[in-house]
């Protein structure tokens, strides 16, 4: 199954690193958004996006708010979401899980971890 990723991060560097890591593990299709608001716009326009990788700390609409907005949306509420963030405290992880992210990566990460989490999500849903 071909995955089309939406990479959401306010840091240009991190978007680039996530994109490079995706290419390294064989995923070529992705688009980018610099915050939650832009991500929601792109999700509502582009129905071919079927995987979201998002940061937590972003201006305007944060990653956590983005996750909640996605889950509340009737059109794309079931899309898999992987959170990639610097927040590694237990309460942060639990808060993200409560908001219904599918998996969680603490920065800094390797392409291998990214692959592992994407595969876990894909296999857990099929």
């Amino acid at each position, binding site marked *: 199954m071909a995955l089309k990723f939406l990479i959401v991060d306010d840091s240009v560097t*991190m978007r680039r690193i996530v994109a*490079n890591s995706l290419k390294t593990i064989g995923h070529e299709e992705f688009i980018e958004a610099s915050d939650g608001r832009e991500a929601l716009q792109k999700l509502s326009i582009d129905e071919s996006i079927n995987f979201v990788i998002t940061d937590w700390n972003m201006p305007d609409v944060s990653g956590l708010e983005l996750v909640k907005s996605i889950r509340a949306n009737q059109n794309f509420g079931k899309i898999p979401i992987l959170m990639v963030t610097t927040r590694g405290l237990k309460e942060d992880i639990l808060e993200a899980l409560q908001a219904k992210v599918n998996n969680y990566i603490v920065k800094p990460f390797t392409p291998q971890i990214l692959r592992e989490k994407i595969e876990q999500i894909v296999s857990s849903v099929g």
Partner: protein
Amino acid sequence: MDYTSNMEKVFQKLGDLKSFFIYGQKIVPVMQKIVDFMQDTVPLLENVNQSIQDSTSKIPKAAVQINNVTSATEVATTEILDIVDAISSDVQTIKTKLELLKNKIDKQKDIISRLTLSVKENKIACEIINNELIPEFVGDELVSMVNMIDKIHDGVMNITISLQVQDITAQQLSSVNHLIHAVQEKLSSLVMDLNNKEVKEVPDIAYQVAESGSFNPDARYNKDKESQTLADTLVNNQIKKPSQEEIDKLFSKP
């Protein structure tokens, strides 16, 4: 009777007054010392006030410099990533070419072994074919070169991973800027209280303070797996097997 009583009261009041004067005589030197101290302190307070004003007016410059550091490291990181991408692409091209070469050599070796079989009666010809046409070490060298290329590729990938430090330090610097802004606000209000005038703004300096939600003040560049292991444990406890209907919905293309 009333006259006597009134006089007694007057004498009592006079006694109180006398005590007050005696007490006053004792307290006057102390009061004088306090006044002297206050007179000495006023210039000091003015100095402190001036210092606070100076420091407060310099804070925006510090904040701008911190923002400049973040921007500069972001630009530099992007440049490094461009170079890393170019190296990665070149390394991949070299690897592909080496693998093609290895395949060609393997094919030629196969041809040579068949050729050797066809001239097996001629020992000299066999020797020439085996020793001179394609020496054995060429294939081994190619394999070793491909392995080295893989190592270079891993190194390039490690550089990319390490560059995540830019995002992490940017968040730490945003946190510092936020603190600086809070200190400036407190100092400005102190100056307002002391002087009843606002702190002069430094011309041409406008700085943006990131929203508190847009950075993690606890961001750390830490390669140990502790946080990831915790996340994995919590995620694994949470994961439930979804229904087939949910699976179909999830990946169905419109």
